[in-house]
Structure formats: structure tokens, C-alpha cells
């Protein structure tokens, strides 16, 4: 069904990419979902080429998880305080964004669509990385610094599955990749920039509702393994804390279960399926709360933790 990838998006001639985007569409294969993007917004093509550089080029015919279209605002909004608008399969579920922030709108729109549609999986709101076949789940709570930590792990030898979605397969509770550019905000952008100076970052968008936003492009190794699942091994509730160098405290698994359930996109919707999948996931995992200020130490210790975690309890 899918054509063999001829090249990566980053290798395409920019004119060819613009043409695809304005025509049948550009395909973003995130692993657990494939999104088709169509747009005539000229600056978007170059930005997507940076953020999705490592992703395979795929034909835009066939069946996709969603088709999203971004176009410029209509009428007066084309020129006066110009806007960009996102349509998902013809519906307009979002407010338009200022025209100079197309990527945040696209990324947020795709995430929203995945979160509301992909109900064949249990969708946790979490970052997920993997090493040696074992996954670390990092639930997303405000102020947790989850994205910074996920980005740091992903640029130091961990495979990136996602920074936003813990996609849990119902049959065996394995995590599946939903590979998306990692959204970083404000200080986090500079922190990750210093941490991984060679990592590809997209443009900065200074005036979004969340402050300044930029995205880290997923690396080729993670992209190439986007269809590989990972066994859950560790659940970490991170909290960036300037007063603590590094502290890892075990969390009762029952409490971890509850915290993951409330931090999920569709736990309630799936009823018995999500209860079974999440209890199995927790049963397979060691659960901790992490307080840290040293990214170096956190990454180092988590690496040791994953290497040590015994799959048989």
C-alpha cells in the first residue's frame, strides 16, 4: 500500500515540496498515525522541510488518519492582520492564528485531531522515550519540564517515540511511536539549544499564547524506527525544581495508575479496555517521582534506571 520511501523530506527540492504541499499533499508518517497536509501558505513548506527533514517521502494517495489543510485567512484577513486557518477534513474546529505562526497552528491542530480520533489506542498525555527495548513514560503536567527532559533524553542516546502522546496498544500495553517535532517553550528552547547544539531546530515563534515556541526536529534514527513498539518499563513523574539537584522517589503503583488515567486523552472513553491496558502497563513498570535541576544528572540516572529495570516482577 505505501510506496517505498525514495528519500527523506529534507532531501527534496524545495520547489518539489512546495508543489506537493499545494497539490495532493505532503505526508507526515508519525508511526502510529499518518497525516496528509495540504497548504498553499508559502512559508510553511520551508519550515516543514526543517522539522520533518528525516521523515520519509511518501505518496499522498491512499488512506490517512487525517487530512489537514492550512490556508490563508479569507477576505480582509488576507491582508489586514493576516491569519492562517486550519481545516480538518473540511471542518474548522479551531480559531485562526496570526499568519506568522503557521507551524504552531499546524502542530497543535494535528495533535488535537490525533487526540480525538485515535481511539483504537489508549492515548496518554505523556512523553515517551526508549532504550534497549524498554520505554520510559513521562506524564505531562504543567511545569513538569517534560518536554525539556524528553528532548534532552532524545538527544543523548534514547529513541524518541513522542513528546506528547503515550500511545498504548490495547492488546499488550506496548508503547507505539507518535513521532512529532518536540515543542519547546521560552527558556527551554535555549536550554535544549545549549544541550544539543547540533540538533535541528525549527524557527522561533515569539508571540504565541504560550510565549515563544520552537520545535526540535526528530532525528533520523528515531524516524526510521517509528513503527517499532517498546515495552513499558518505567513511569517518571518529572518536576523541574531549582532547589533539588536530583531526587528519585518511588511512587505507589496504584497512585501512578490514577495519575496516568486522569492525564490521558481518552481513558474514560475506552472504559474496560483502558482499565485493562493501563493496569497491565503499570504492572510492568517501576514508577517514580523525579525532582531535578541538573539535566545532565537526570539523563544519566534515567539511563541507568532503564538498563537496570527488570521486566519480570
Amino acid at each position, binding site marked *: 500500500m505505501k510506496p517505498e520511501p525514495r528519500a527523506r523530506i529534507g532531501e527534496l527540492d524545495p520547489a518539489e515540496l512546495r508543489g506537493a504541499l499545494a497539490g495532493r499533499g505532503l505526508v507526515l508518517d508519525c508511526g502510529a498515525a499518518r497525516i496528509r497536509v495540504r497548504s498553499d501558505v508559502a512559508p510553511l513548506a520551508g519550515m516543514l522541510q526543517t522539522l520533518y527533514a528525516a521523515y520519509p517521502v511518501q505518496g499522498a494517495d*491512499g*488512506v490517512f488518519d487525517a487530512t489537514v489543510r492550512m490556508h490563508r485567512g479569507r477576505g480582509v484577513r488576507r491582508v489586514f492582520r493576516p491569519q492562517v486557518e486550519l481545516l480538518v*477534513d*473540511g471542518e474548522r474546529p479551531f*480559531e485562526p*492564528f496570526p499568519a506568522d505562526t503557521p507551524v504552531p497552528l499546524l502542530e497543535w491542530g494535528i495533535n488535537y485531531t490525533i487526540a480525538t480520533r*485515535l*481511539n483504537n489506542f489508549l492515548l496518554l498525555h505523556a512523553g515517551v522515550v526508549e532504550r534497549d527495548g524498554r520505554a520510559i513514560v513521562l506524564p505531562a503536567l504543567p511545569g513538569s519540564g517534560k518536554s525539556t527532559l524528553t528532548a534532552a533524553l532524545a538527544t543523548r542516546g534514547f529513541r524518541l517515540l513522542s513528546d506528547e502522546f503515550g500511545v498504548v496498544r490495547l492488546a499488550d500495553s506496548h508503547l507505539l511511536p507518535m513521532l512529532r517535532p518536540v515543542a519547546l517553550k521560552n527558556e527551554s528552547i535555549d536550554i535544549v539549544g545549549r544541550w544539543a547544539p547540533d540538533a535541528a531546530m525549527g524557527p522561533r515563534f515569539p508571540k504565541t499564547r504560550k510565549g515563544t515556541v520552537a520545535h526540535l526536529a526528530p532525528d533520523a534514527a528515531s524516524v526510521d524506527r517509528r513503527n517499532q513498539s517498546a515495552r513499558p518499563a518505567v513511569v517518571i513523574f518529572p518536576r523541574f525544581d531549582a532547589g533539588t539537584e536530583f531526587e528519585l522517589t518511588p511512587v505507589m503503583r496504584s497512585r501512578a495508575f490514577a495519575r496516568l488515567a486522569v492525564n490521558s486523552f481518552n481513558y474514560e472513553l475506552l*472504559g474496560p479496555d483502558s482499565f485493562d491496558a493501563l493496569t497491565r502497563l503499570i504492572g510492568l513498570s517501576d514508577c517514580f517521582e523525579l525532582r531535578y535541576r541538573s539535566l545532565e544528572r537526570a539523563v544519566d540516572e534515567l539511563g541507568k534506571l532503564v538498563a537496570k529495570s527488570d521486566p519480570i516482577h
Partner: protein
Amino acid sequence: MIPARERLPGHVRLLLDALVDASGCASLGDDQWDVLIRAARAARLLGVLAARIGRHAPLESFPEPIGRHLLAASKVARFRRSKVELLVDAVGRQLSKLDSPLVLLKGGAYLAQGLRLAEGRLPADVDLMVRRTSLDAAEQTLLAAGWEFQKTDAYDQHYYRAWSHELPPMRCVGQAMELDLHHTILPPLGRLKPDTGELFAAAVPVAATRFAVLCPADQVLHAAAHLFQDSDCIDRLRDLVDFDGLVREHSAADPGRFWTALIERARWHHLQRPLGYALAFARAWLDLPVPEPATGAVTEAHPRGPAAWAVGRLAGMALPPADPDGERSWAAKSAGHALEFRALCLRMPAGLLAYHAGMKLVRSFRRPADTPPAAP
């Protein structure tokens, strides 16, 4: 007056073909699946489509992402179903002592009766009909049990109670669905007045529950009237699919008896026109079989004249979902507006209509328009 199926846009034809014969989906190409899934989703029929496909082959046997689209849609429908059952269970206990039958309408009824057409549907609320004389008691009992009216202003409350056939929607902590309490099936001041007493008299109890449902013929008539009397038809293909499903299921055991009862009761309730429209569309678009003996009566019920021609054309444009690759055409939107106006006219006498339209205009200036969820 009704556009023939072959003349409908490609995405609509694909959807109708798949609903009529789900087994045919096995031979669809990828591009066709793409259009079909997106059209079904736009029409809120993806769950119904998945249920029909699932009767011929397990959903897991379809290649990805087709399989997961269908599976996800059926999970959503299953969730909605559990929420309806939870509400019906609670309300059955809360209203057990009410001096009136508790007649479930529409989706709540289809689930309680275990009708096949209920599978994959996406109910958003539960409609319950009680006798007008018991309406106040029902309202008080529910309020005491923790139900609350949605925040409505005095005008809305007045509109609902005085002019409508239902109370404003009610919500309750712990219930995901809304409860709509009715005392008849169509707006009471409207042009068409079904015999409410007959609706109750002929209602059929649901075994082992406190509830009843409309008799088969009345259930079919309600579905037709709901669509062709009381709505603007925009994107309401799913209501036509319900109508078609009801006729098929209710006529299966004894077609002769069912069709006779349907035609007779349509006359009794003065609902021949909406029935005529619904049958015409269901035959044209969903291949609804009408047996020989009934065709004569059905033809007699078939609406005629310029008004009928207009409704046929307008509904034909408004009913199907928009092309997922485009936006709803201006013409289709206008068709919807025209039908909304028609429904409003049918709902209330002319004097009240002007007052209502005026109030809506005034309020739209006073209240900020609803906006979709803002970006985080």
C-alpha cells in the same frame, strides 16, 4: 424532485453504496476508502458504517489505517451507548412512581429495544416523553434528584415551555448525556398535530424496565416527522439512515401488517407528507424496498406540487455531508437555511414566528457568538 443517487457527488454515492451493501467495501481501492471514511465521518455515520461492515468481516481484518478508523469509531459508539444506558437506568428509578408511561424516543428507544440500527450510532442525548399532565411532577422529581436545567434565560425557558413540545435540556452530575423531556413528538402549535393520546395508547412496554417505546408505525412516523418537519436537514443523512433502518427492521416479521398499519396511522396522525418525503428519499438513496401491495398507498402519500418539488430539491442538497476536500457549497448552505425557515414556519403560527425571530435577532447582538475552542 429528489436527485437520483447516480447524480449525487462521488463521496455521497460511495457512502450510500457502502451503507446499502457493506460487503461491497471489501473490493474498494485505497483512494475510495479514503473518500468513504472521510465522508462517513463528516456525516457522523462512521460508527454505523463500521457496524455494518463488521457484520461481514472482522474490523481487525482490514489493513491499517482503515481498520483503526473503523475500530475507533465503534469504540466511540460503544462509549456513548454506555452513557445512554446509565442515564436511562437512573431516570427509570427516579421516575418509577410517576403517573405516566415513560416513553423513550429515538436513539434511547432503539438501544432499549435492541434494534440493530442502534449499533454504531452516536447519541448525544436521551429523549423521554411523558403525559403533559405529568410533566410538572416529572420535572420536580428530576430536579429533586439532582437534575438541573442548562443555564437558559427567561426567554428560552418560556419558549420551551409555552411553544415547544419539550422542556429545556437537563443535565445531572455523573451523567454525560442530556435529558430532553417531551410531552409530544412535534411542536404543539405547529401545523401538524399528531394524536398524542394515540401515541401513548399504542406504546409498547420494554420488558423488564419501567419504559415503553412508540409502536413500530409511530416510531417510523416520528423519525420521518423529525427529519422532514422539525429540522433544517443540514447534514442529517444519519436521520434518513435511521428511518430506513427502522422500516426494514419493523417490516421484516410481517411486512403486510406493518405497511398497512404505517399508512393508516400516517393518515390518523396527519403525517403523510413527512412520511412521503422520507420514503421517497429512502427508496431513491438507500434502496428501501417497498412491497407491491404498499406501493399504491405509498404513491398516494407521495408529496406533490411545487412545494414538494422545492423540499425535495432543498433536502437533496442539504442532507448529505459536504465534500471533505472542499467546504459546503453556498447553494447547500442556502438550502439548509431555507429548510430551517420552513421548519420554523411549520413549528409556530405566523404571529409568534415574527416575535421569535425578532427576539433571536436582539439576543444575537447582546450575547457574544459561540466560538470554537481556542488554541492553548
